[in-house]
């Protein structure tokens, strides 16, 4: 579609990409021999990046958890849902199986409209039954998904909360299983991630967040009490605040996985491409219209947040509600069909 291509080929996009590529090239020249192993060895690069993101995310969680909880989804939310669709649907080729569109699309649309989460498990079960795998494996997957759906039903009003916490961890599981792992490098960020999660569940984490002023809110209805109701309902406040901090940190990591780590892991080449090449690849995967729609949604949510922060926040979550089950459906297919990554 020409109008979309005109926008995507414009200097408005091209100039920042060229500037970013020049800046990175200069930075790498300055680093000299230090940068070489990081550029050449993906395992090392991803492990270093993930570790740095864990440390940054932990500091952010202890210093400004309420801001992270509010602004994270508004800035990274739409791009990470687009990454979900790109890596789990487009690059895996699942979009070329029309029956998956019908089996998964209906339940996902229903969930997006506010329907009960249990329908996502029904859809995932239907998808599992059509997987290219042996009957026994498919039936085991179906039984596990039925147990998951029954669990959601049993949890009642808090099923959304439990699912939201679990789905953040799912991103790290995707990263871990995306490629066959060799060596020890990937164990460092995994250990750091586990340690950070463990620390955030302790009393000193809440004390640090209090001491930094991170749990003070400037007003409005999105302070610590709201976050307690949202992500730790019915839990005593002290323990609830630990869960709020944990949610904040793992949510940040789940954005990091979909937007930084998984794209690096998924490339055929071990060395990172230029920003221009990454952009062209994204364009090929989504198509010009798809990329333009994604861009408009990203900018639209940000603009909405400027007008009404609280409504934009809820609007984004209504829009993104389906993607947790999309991840489950794609994950089930990948496991059943013994697929790693998108290739």
């Amino acid at each position: 579609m020409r109008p979309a291509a005109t926008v995507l080929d414009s200097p408005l996009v091209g100039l920042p990409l060229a500037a970013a590529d020049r800046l990175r090239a200069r930075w790498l020249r300055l680093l000299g021999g230090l940068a070489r192993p990081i550029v050449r060895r993906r395992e090392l690069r991803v492990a270093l990046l993930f570790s740095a993101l864990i440390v940054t995310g932990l500091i952010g969680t202890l210093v400004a958890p309420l801001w992270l909880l509010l602004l994270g989804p508004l800035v990274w939310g739409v791009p990470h849902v687009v990454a979900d669709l790109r890596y789990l649907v487009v690059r895996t080729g699942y979009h070329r199986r029309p029956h998956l569109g019908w089996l998964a699309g209906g339940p996902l649309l229903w969930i997006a409209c506010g329907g009960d989460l249990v329908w996502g498990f029904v859809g995932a079960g239907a998808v599992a039954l059509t997987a290219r795998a042996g009957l026994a494996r498919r039936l085991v997957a179906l039984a596990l998904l039925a147990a998951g759906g029954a669990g959601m039903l049993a949890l009642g009003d808090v099923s959304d909360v439990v699912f939201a916490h679990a789905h953040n961890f799912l991103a790290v599981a995707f990263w871990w299983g995306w490629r066959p792992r060799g060596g020890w490098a990937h164990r460092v960020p995994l250990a750091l991630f586990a340690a950070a999660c463990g620390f955030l569940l302790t009393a000193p984490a809440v004390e640090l967040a209090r001491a930094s002023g991170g749990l003070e809110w400037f007003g409005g209805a999105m302070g610590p009490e709201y976050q307690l109701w949202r992500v730790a309902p019915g839990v005593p406040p002290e323990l609830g605040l630990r869960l709020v901090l944990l949610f904040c940190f793992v949510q940040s990591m789940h954005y990091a996985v979909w937007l930084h780590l998984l794209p690096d892991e998924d490339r055929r080449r071990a060395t990172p491409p230029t920003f221009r090449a990454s952009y062209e690849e994204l364009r090929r995967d989504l198509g010009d219209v798809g990329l333009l729609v994604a861009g408009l949604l990203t900018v639209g949510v940000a603009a909405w947040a400027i007008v009404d922060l609280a409504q934009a926040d809820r609007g984004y979550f209504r829009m993104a509600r389906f993607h947790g089950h999309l991840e489950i459906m794609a994950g089930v297919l990948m496991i059943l069909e013994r697929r790693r990554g998108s290739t």
Partner: protein
Amino acid sequence: MERRSIVAVVLGVVSVACATGVIESDSSQPELVVEPLAGTDARGLVNGIVWDRKKGGGLAGALVLVQCTCLPRMLERMTGEGGAFHFGELPPGRYTVQVLYRDANIQRTFDLAAGTRIRADVRVDPERRFIIS
């Protein structure tokens, strides 16, 4: 237009509809009840009850906003015990009643004629959360 572009546009439209709450599975609301007011007053009245969709009782502490171009400013009230709200002495015009409670945000729009009362009850699910990030 190629199929991929059509899918992208449809997904974009559905996303906007979901974000704005235009399509929601449990968005049905009670019928509006319009009644003439006693006397010949040219003013109108809007009242109603904010109901708890799950438990059935009235919901205290919901913020009710009333907007109309016929008003100099937006009116607001918190529902009391029993979930009731009441706005009297309103000029005729096209009104929007907005109810905010936790993550719920429900709007009802209607025309208020002179000398009439409109009962605009609203059902909300107070435990509804939007958190899958």
